[in-house]
């Protein structure tokens, strides 16, 4: 049985539907992420799980128990707030001791458990500081230690790393993964940062306008997005309008507007529906670029001209104008060409190509 069951939960604010019939089932020990653009209802959903807000319809079950009407303090769920919400009038140790005191933990046990929690997040020796005497990263750790000290069943994290700078964020991501593995608490993690979601999660629910668009493992979300929105939101993607011409066993033959015939994979439901309109999703890093393509598996091949490029250090993103007039984004790792500077100039005649399983057909 799943630890957390969200059944058909809807939350409205006036006419606006912030969370629209969401159903999710989250297992114990999972690192589960709600991913979506700002305003898609992630926080609203999280607040209903925590008990700060109630669904208008549907219900939330924790460990098989219906949580309707159960106040936050009686749910075995803790939250790490985006603002950290550390109590400014309490020291680090007092902050971490707070949930223990609320749970009626014997006074003699409090200090050792606080120390243990500080140790978990590498903050030993900071117990007498006040929150305002800590750096952003340290506050983040205190918030984590406080939320985890009495081992809740479920930890909710609302964009916990959003306020940190890029370097620290990366470090904290690794620490979060380790911490979650070590203590085995189920995490429900909210973020609008797709890279973060892909890096951290066991499973991701991609949300859009209050609905779950796709629920899958990170690899599947990335390589087999099920909607145009998901393909566009996760990573860079060429999204090309097209029509299904015919379908074979494993691949579809598509006619891409302004490009021509392309073979691609697609969902089973699209097979055999000749004439159906849709979108070809093609990741820039799956497209090869060369003056003369030699690789035999680049079965989809087009000639064109380099229109522009964007050098970003580890990779260069080329924009290639194919002879049909379409522009494609093509990503080339800089080490692949053995040099760190650009390889093609705007105006260079090039060939682009990709394998049949690189492109992915999305029904509209």
């Amino acid at each position: 049985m799943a630890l957390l069951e969200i059944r058909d939960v809807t939350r409205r604010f006036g006419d606006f539907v912030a969370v629209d019939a969401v159903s999710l089932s989250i297992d114990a020990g999972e690192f589960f992420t709600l991913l979506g653009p700002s305003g898609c209802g992630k926080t609203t959903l999280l607040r209903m799980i925590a008990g700060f807000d109630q669904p208008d319809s549907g219900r939330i079950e924790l460990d098989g128990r219906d949580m309707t009407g159960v106040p936050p303090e009686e749910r075995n769920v803790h939250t790490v707030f985006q603002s950290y919400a550390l109590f400014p009038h309490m020291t680090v140790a007092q902050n971490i001791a707070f949930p223990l005191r609320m749970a009626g933990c014997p006074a003699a046990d409090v200090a050792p458990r606080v120390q243990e929690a500080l140790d978990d997040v590498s903050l030993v020796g900071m117990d007498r500081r006040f929150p305002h005497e800590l750096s952003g990263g340290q506050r983040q750790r205190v918030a984590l230690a406080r939320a985890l000290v009495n081992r809740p069943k479920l930890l909710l994290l609302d964009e916990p790393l959003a306020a940190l700078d890029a370097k620290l964020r990366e470090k904290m991501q690794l620490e979060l993964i380790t911490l979650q593995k070590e203590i085995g608490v189920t995490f429900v993690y909210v973020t609008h940062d797709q890279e973060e979601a892909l890096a951290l999660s066991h499973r991701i629910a991609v949300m859009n306008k209050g609905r779950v668009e796709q629920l899958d493992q990170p690899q599947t979300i990335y390589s087999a997005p099920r909607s145009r929105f998901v393909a566009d939101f996760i990573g860079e993607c060429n999204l090309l309008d097209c029509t299904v011409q015919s379908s074979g066993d494993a691949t579809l033959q598509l006619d891409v507007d302004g490009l021509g015939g392309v073979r691609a994979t697609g969902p089973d439901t699209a097979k055999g529906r000749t004439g159906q309109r849709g979108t070809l999703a093609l990741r820039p890093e799956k497209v090869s670029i060369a003056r003369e393509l030699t690789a035999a598996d680049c079965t989809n091949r087009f000639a064109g001209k380099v229109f522009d490029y964007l050098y970003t250090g580890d990779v260069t993103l080329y924009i290639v104008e194919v002879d049909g007039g379409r522009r494609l984004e093509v990503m080339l790792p800089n080490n692949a060409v053995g040099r760190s500077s650009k390889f093609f100039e705007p105006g260079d005649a090039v060939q682009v190509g990709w394998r049949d399983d690189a492109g992915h057909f999305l029904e509209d």
Partner: protein
Amino acid sequence: MTPARGIGRLAVGFAIFGYVFLYVPLLIVIAYSFNDSRLNAEWVGFTWHWYEVLFADEQMLAAAGNSLLIGVVSSAIATVLGTLAGYAMHRWRLRLLPILVVTPIAIPEILTGVSLLLFFVVCNVSLGLVSITLAHVAFCVGFVAIVVRSRLAGMDESLTEAARDLGASPWRAFRLVTLPLIMPGVIAGALMAFTLSIDDFVITFFVAGVDATTLPLQIYSMIKIAVTPEVNAVSTLLMLLTLLLIVVAARVSPGALRGE
């Protein structure tokens, strides 16, 4: 001289003028309380005489005792009620409560005095210390509520939620997190209530009845005859008390005076 600098100097001039008007009269009162003369006209010499007169004046001492008692009790009650009202106004988007709380502040005191007097008479509350205390509570609650609410408005909403989230009942969340954080506002409100109560004249005048008297009423009845240096002495002590309160407040909650 540039216009900006001219305006700057003008502002400084006005400020100095304002402070002179505020503080010079107070300094004069203090000085004359030590003046060895019945008249507040010229400096004759130093004396403790007027303080001796003051501390022998039974009526004045009784009035001062009443004022302190009423001040403490009414500001304590007003602080509790005002804090609750401020919290309620912040927590729930009520329409009526803010109007009920703020209106008494805007109503002319004389109107409040008359209406309270009528009310007490209608309700058969005998006029005296109790009626004065009730009246003071009534006009102080609004001030406390406003100070507390503005303090709450500046508080991170998620702190209270975090307390609940970590296992605190609503009451414990209020007592352990919300209250300590709004304490500077509560203390500032209490202080304000106490000073308002100690020096209120108009409303007290209406609801005091015949027996009870407070310091302002007593001073007023004395200066109807003449401003004796004894009034200067009692005023000086009152100032000292106010100053002491401000110092205490600053010690108890360093942010209170700066509105943090």
